[in-house]
């Protein structure tokens, strides 16, 4: 079975007049339909840029130099035209962000932003149909009073409530792939855990594939089927969550695990840039990249 998403030797560099800064050095990664995959690495290792490339956003940035292939349902996103990439966003792919409250526009109500999201899939959806859809979607994320939330502005809602709204929006058009970039890291730990398990439950129900990005291995343990460990723009180890946690082989992964109890994810190891283990091919626990 062909995977939903297959990234092949993806490279990225940012260039300006004076310098050329490589960020990704040939990443390969795949996600099957309905699979939940984690991409774990310390901050600055290139997780968010990977997500932005999958969404086809970074391709529009003049300073970004992208190489390699990003196959989504048999089509290479890197080779697509701008309009084709744009057509995938908000329909077959969607995204959840770090801070739900600042990811919603402060000058518009939840309703008007949600309507815009729904109309990405069905452009001529009537107001009444929109309302019906939104209410059932908000009920799905266990928001007790959907009508009141629709009328509200994001700053009138708590972070946890906004996160539920974001999850409802992200799943509204039944995307095939959900990108979750450190979702809810800005929230309280308990609220974060609550909304994560809600998201977990929903993507299982809808068979949505997820690329879950985090700097925290611990969070992944219950969530992901498979894990990729990224370090300075390279995948250093990957495998099923079970075997990776049972026997981490790469020193960086081992160090990441040592840091797990600290939920803030600080105190990550710093390997020398050039070492035997660093440039070696990624450690595999079986399966494809």
């Amino acid at each position, binding site marked *: 079975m062909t995977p939903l998403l297959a990234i092949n030797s993806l490279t990225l560099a940012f260039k300006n007049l004076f310098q050329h800064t490589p960020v990704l050095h040939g990443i390969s990664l795949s996600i099957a339909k309905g699979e939940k995959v984690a991409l774990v690495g310390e901050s600055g290792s290139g997780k968010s840029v990977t997500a932005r490339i999958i*969404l086809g*956003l970074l391709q529009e940035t*003049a300073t970004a130099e992208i190489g390699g292939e990003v196959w989504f349902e048999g089509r290479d996103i890197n080779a697509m035209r701008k309009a084709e990439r*744009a*057509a*995938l*966003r*908000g*329909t077959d792919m*969607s*995204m959840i*962000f*770090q*801070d739900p409250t*600042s*990811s*919603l*526009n*402060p*000058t*518009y*109500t939840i309703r008007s932003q949600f309507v*815009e*999201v729904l109309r*990405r899939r069905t452009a001529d959806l009537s107001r009444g149909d929109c309302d019906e859809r939104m209410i059932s979607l908000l009920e799905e994320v266990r928001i007790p009073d959907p*009508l*009141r*939330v629709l*009328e*509200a*502005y994001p*700053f*009138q*809602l*708590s972070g946890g*409530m906004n996160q539920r709204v974001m999850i409802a*929006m992200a799943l509204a058009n039944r995307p095939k792939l959900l*990108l979750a970039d450190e979702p809810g890291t800005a929230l309280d730990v308990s609220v974060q855990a609550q909304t994560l398990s809600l998201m977990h439950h929903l993507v299982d129900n809808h068979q949505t594939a997820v690329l879950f990005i985090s700097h925290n291995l611990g969070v992944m343990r219950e969530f992901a089927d498979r894990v990729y460990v990224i370090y300075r723009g390279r995948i250093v180890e990957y495998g099923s969550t079970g075997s990776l946690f049972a026997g981490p082989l790469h020193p960086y992964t081992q160090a990441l695990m040592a840091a797990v109890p600290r939920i803030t994810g600080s105190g990550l190891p710093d390997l020398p840039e050039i070492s035997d283990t660093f440039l070696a091919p990624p450690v595999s626990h079986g399966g494809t990249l």
Partner: protein
Amino acid sequence: MRPGSFLGQHILNSPLIRLLLQRLGISFIVLIGVSMLIFVIARVIPGDPARIALGPNAAPEQVASLRAAMHLDDPIVVQYGFFVLDVTRGDLGKSLYTNRPVTVDIVQFLPATLELVFAAGIIMVGLGLPLGILAARYHGRWPDNAVRIFALLTVSAPSFVWAVILMLLFAFYLPLFPIAGRISDIYEIDRVTGFMTIDTLIAGNLVAFQDAFSHLVLPAVALSLSGIGQAARLTRANMVETYEKPFIEMAQAYGFFPSRIARIYVFKPSLIPSLTIIGLDFAAMLGNAFLVEAVFAWPGLSRYGVAVILRKDLNAIMGTVLVIAITFLIVNILVDLLIAFLNPRIRYSTRVDA
């Protein structure tokens, strides 16, 4: 709580009303300050107002009786009291220049100035904001640079210089627009609002409206040019900053159309900080109108103001300054209300969930 009562409740205990009352209070205090300032300046200017009013040939007894009538022999505080009392009764005294009550002069000349300033304000907002949106949407690309050059050009010369340039170009060398005045002499239009474009429409005379409109174009454009540039630059700067916000990345990640993102999702949050300055620019046009009116022989309050200043016509000067200050304050209140209306954080300060 039912959704209906949730909405109604917000409209009823409207923070907008509270804001309006607060701004009115502040404006009242400012107005008192302005009136004191005008009054003191008028009394400090050398020369006996009674003597100036009566002319050099008047007998000393006449001057003395006028001085008494004008309360000029009373202590300055008492004089100020009489001044305020007169003003609140709508009595600004008599103009030496026109020999009519100053209020009559102002009623005659103010609408022409307001018409010019409003037209310029509409052009400033109508062109400046879209240009700013365009520049921000394509920032770093050629539309941005084109707008930048245009904006630099417009702010590089004051409005009266633009007035002269526009007049030379589009009224003299290329006679597209009339050179002076508000309307051609052949039209007799009943005065209703004092706004010539509106009065011609009320009279149902479309040809006259066209004529009045073409008279308005050049002075209004001249007056608005530097404001267009400033509004465009300001809008662009605020929008470029907003483009970096997570909620815009969200809009892009969900595939909202780039032009909608610019016009709707970036523009509105960026407009709120721009509006205060745009409001001030608009008010500043009241001052700039002085010279533009002079260039185009526009029969407005500014031209009247210049004329009375040159004649040391104290009552008229005080009246003019007072009216301009009041207009300035009203514009500021309107801008503040607009900002509050656009910014839901001011409108709704309550949280919906616990």
